[in-house]
């Protein structure tokens, strides 16, 4: 069988045999009539196939196919490059976008890429749908804003507009601070009815080692996040921490650990750990019933005595004016520290100052007026639209010395309160 197949193969391709193979095949064919007959049929078949005329293409069709072939070949070559080009462009675009995003991540207010950074943050915040994650990220953004301000102050980039939020604090040197950032309130603002620890939203511009406040709004307590303890401390000299038991004021930057809740929210307990004098010196109607404030119940809620820092060394207890009980926060949280005066505020149970003000380690602190604060009787009420944000056009530069700093002034009454509730 295999021999027959090989024999057929030789006959089928007889013309390819070399002379020696042909001679051998011819000798075999002499002995095999059947194979000889097959060879004859194959020869006839070759003649038939060879005589078969080839179908001819029309010359016009030939030209058309030639032109179309070259055209399609070129376009196909370009089409082959097109996906490569598109992929390269896409990659380049992604690299540019990603590179811009990465480059903008370290930008500061005033930088060219800072809007890119903020836009990316806004997009990410909007895309963070889960409430917990949204709140966490919003908290982180607040921390980023504060860090930007710290960095700008360290770099001394004066005139850069900034915005940040945090608890209002008062340093032992008599400076007003928000989340550890020294701020400079304009003199025309007057005096603040806001107690230390109250969450505020500040816009302003970088001055010399301070932020010149242009607007300040009181926030709902849950809307502000205190700085975390783990964050790097400022390198500014005026932000040096102070031992709670040794000084009339708190550390310049109040960490979240000061909050007994540990959630970073400014609370009455947190306010307790903030400067005692300022706290008691700010007769806010929202003083909490858990010992945050010491104010008589009969004090009118809309009459807020502004605080004025006392010069350093003047260890003087702040005389608390008569005031109704503190107004609870709008969310019903008595420990929010919201210091917005309210005409309908109810008087909570007042707590004696000595019991109200405690250091973070639990030791009672004497209630003190800020070192450079003046007694309420010496303060002049500030006139202005009620509940309007403090907006200053050109704020003077920082004063020399904390006591002479033109003591941070805030409105003296609730009707003239420039601190508006709510986020901008």
């Amino acid at each position: 069988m295999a021999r027959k197949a090989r024999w057929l193969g030789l006959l089928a391709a007889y013309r390819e045999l070399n002379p020696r193979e042909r001679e051998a095949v011819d000798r075999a064919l002499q002995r095999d009539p059947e194979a000889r007959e097959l060879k004859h049929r194959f020869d006839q078949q070759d003649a038939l196939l060879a005589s078969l005329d080839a179908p001819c293409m029309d010359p016009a069709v030939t030209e058309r196919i030639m032109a179309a072939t070259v055209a399609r070949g070129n376009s196909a070559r370009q089409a082959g490059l097109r996906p490569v080009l598109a992929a390269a462009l896409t990659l380049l675009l992604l690299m540019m976008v990603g590179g811009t995003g990465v480059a903008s991540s370290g930008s500061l207010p005033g930088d060219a890429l800072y809007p890119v950074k903020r836009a990316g943050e806004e997009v990410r915040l909007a895309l963070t749908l889960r409430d917990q994650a949204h709140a966490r990220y919003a908290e982180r953004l607040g921390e980023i804003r504060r860090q930007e301000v710290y960095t700008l102050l360290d770099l001394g980039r004066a005139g850069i507009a900034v915005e940040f939020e945090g608890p209002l604090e008062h340093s032992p040197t008599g400076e007003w601070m928000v989340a550890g950032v020294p701020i400079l309130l304009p003199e025309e603002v007057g005096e603040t009815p806001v107690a230390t620890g109250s969450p505020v939203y500040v816009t302003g511009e970088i001055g010399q080692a301070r932020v010149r406040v242009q607007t300040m709004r009181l926030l709902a307590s849950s809307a502000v996040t205190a700085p975390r303890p783990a964050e790097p401390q400022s390198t500014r000299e005026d932000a040096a921490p102070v031992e709670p038991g040794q000084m009339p004021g708190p550390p310049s930057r109040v960490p979240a650990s000061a909050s007994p809740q540990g959630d970073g929210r400014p609370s009455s307990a947190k306010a307790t750990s903030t400067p005692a004098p300022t706290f008691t010196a700010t007769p806010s109607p929202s003083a909490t019933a858990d010992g945050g404030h010491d104010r008589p119940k009969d004090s009118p809620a809309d009459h807020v005595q502004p605080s004025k820092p006392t010069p350093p060394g003047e260890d003087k207890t702040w005389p608390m004016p008569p005031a109704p009980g503190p107004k609870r926060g709008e969310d019903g949280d008595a420990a929010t520290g919201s210091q917005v005066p309210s005409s309908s505020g109810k008087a909570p149970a007042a707590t004696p100052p000595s019991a109200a003000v405690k250091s973070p380690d639990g030791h009672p602190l004497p209630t003190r007026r800020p070192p450079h604060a003046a007694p309420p009787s010496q303060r002049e009420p500030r006139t202005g639209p009620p509940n309007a944000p403090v907006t200053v056009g050109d704020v003077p530069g920082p004063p020399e010395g904390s006591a002479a700093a033109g003591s941070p002034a805030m409105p003296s009454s609730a009707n003239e309160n420039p601190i508006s509730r709510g986020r901008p």
Partner: protein
Amino acid sequence: MPAAQPVSKAERDALFVDLYNEFHQPIFGYLFRLLRDRERAEDAVQEAFVKAYRALPRLDGDANYRAWLYRIATNTAYDRLRRQRLLSWLPLLDDGDDPALHYDHIDGCDTSIQVQEALNRLPVRYRAPLLLYGVYGLSTAEIARVLGITRSGVKMRLARARRMFIEVHGKGE
């Protein structure tokens, strides 16, 4: 036939023109006998030469251009036949292909309809090597390249195709 590998696009284009002028008629005839339709054969010629034009830069300088072009043409025809076989499952699209109806369309060429019909009755896997060997004069080595099989496989297919053709053509006679 050019032997040196062209380096520039102009040289490649010149080579392609030479190849086209030399092979477009036999390639057309080969495709016509495989596809049994003039228009489809013309389309297949164009498709095969487009493929050849695109693949020409990657071709070795010492390549067998004839075997290479017939291989492209064979694969193009197989693709079209496969597509046609798929489409034939759709009765409305079946064109009722009858090979004998198309032979009188070959103008200016004296063809033997009986031989054509005998060839067309062969399965395409046997028709192709027989056409390449008997009509277009390719060697078994070249056919092996065109079909992608061994040379002994070509001889086996050729022997079977020849015997099948004798049977079919003998019945026709």
